[in-house]
């Protein structure tokens, strides 16, 4: 059974919901899934300045671990999800790409990415299924995310 790792950046939970939808899509295609949340490097004062941020952050810290080397080693496919204002140059994504390069396996991984710039960073990827930002794709975003997950899982077979 293929393993699809869904990596996402989320602050208040909207991209988290898309990540869950992508994971469901991969499960529908009979893959194992791992959901990994990128920890945002941010100071405490900023967190408290936004209502609900701390609560949501603490919940997600509890529910998700950050991507680890073994996640990438064990991944047959990757789905990356990020809000449109958080591009691949964000510090969290940069360290993720460093992790991917460090443990780059000999086996190219099918990947689906939110942005075309993400696609370029995933040099080891065999294909990228979507290049536009999921945040800009309209109201059917969860459905598109589910299809992303499903496509990646199918590509892993």
């Amino acid at each position: 059974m293929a393993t699809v790792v869904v990596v996402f950046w989320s602050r208040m939970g909207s991209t988290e919901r898309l990540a869950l939808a992508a994971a469901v899509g991969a499960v529908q295609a009979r893959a194992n899934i791992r959901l990994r949340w990128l920890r945002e490097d941010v100071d405490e004062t900023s967190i408290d300045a936004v209502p609900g941020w701390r609560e949501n952050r603490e919940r997600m810290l509890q529910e998700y671990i950050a991507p680890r080397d073994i996640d990438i080693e064990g991944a047959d496919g990757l789905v990356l999800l990020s809000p449109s204002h958080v591009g691949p140059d964000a510090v969290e994504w940069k360290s993720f790409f460093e992790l991917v390069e460090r443990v780059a396996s000999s086996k190219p991984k099918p990947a689906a990415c939110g942005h075309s710039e993400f696609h370029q960073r995933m040099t080891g990827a065999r294909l990228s299924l979507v290049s536009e930002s999921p945040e800009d794709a309209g109201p059917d975003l969860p459905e598109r995310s589910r299809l992303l997950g499903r496509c990646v899982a199918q590509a892993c077979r």
Partner: protein
Amino acid sequence: MATTIRRASERGHAKHSWLETYHTFTFAGYYDPAHMGFRSLRVLNDDTIAPGRGFGAHAHRDMEIVTYVLSGQLEHRDSMGERHVFGANVIQAMSAGSGIVHSEFNASKTEPVHLLQIWIEPSAEDLPPSYQQFEFDPAEKHGKLRRIAGPTPDAAQRAAVIHQDAHIFAAVLDTGKTIRYPLASGRHAWVQVAWGEVAVNGEPLAMGDAIAVSDAPALTIAGTSGGEILLFDLS
């Protein structure tokens, strides 16, 4: 009549810093080919989760999952957008079907949550995922069998509808109280002791013990020194 007793002490056991769990059947790191399930009953876990801890987001597919909290409060979140906190005398049934992702956490920062989690294999694959949750009056299981799940809706009392020819009942029995459950021909029963001491068809059972009964006309369940049981009536 065929009966088999599964003792609490024979179950798989794992103790982590945040979770103590007993597996009646093969589960996770516990594998025993002699205990892979009973009829459609595939998993029966007895979990105690430390305050504030739990199971992070993970996926299920093609499984009817019933969670029965004995004490404490469990928080559930899933990919269908369901988000609930519930405790004892609440039935939660999740049909994983074609795929769901969920997390389960102890909602309390101070008290453990103790629960039984039941997995029943569905009669069909790729069903649409669904979630059911309802509360019942504990008086309805006191001294009698209260159906908590079955294959069809119960007009008299709400029960979770599961995609399998399987019925689950709960009962709390006081000392000396005896109830009888007729077992239809070709049906198989599993009785799990949630807590306390009971006797099933004369066999004494303690907390965590279970008995499988087949080819018997009826079950007689006696509250030896009081206790709670779950009864599964399976095809």
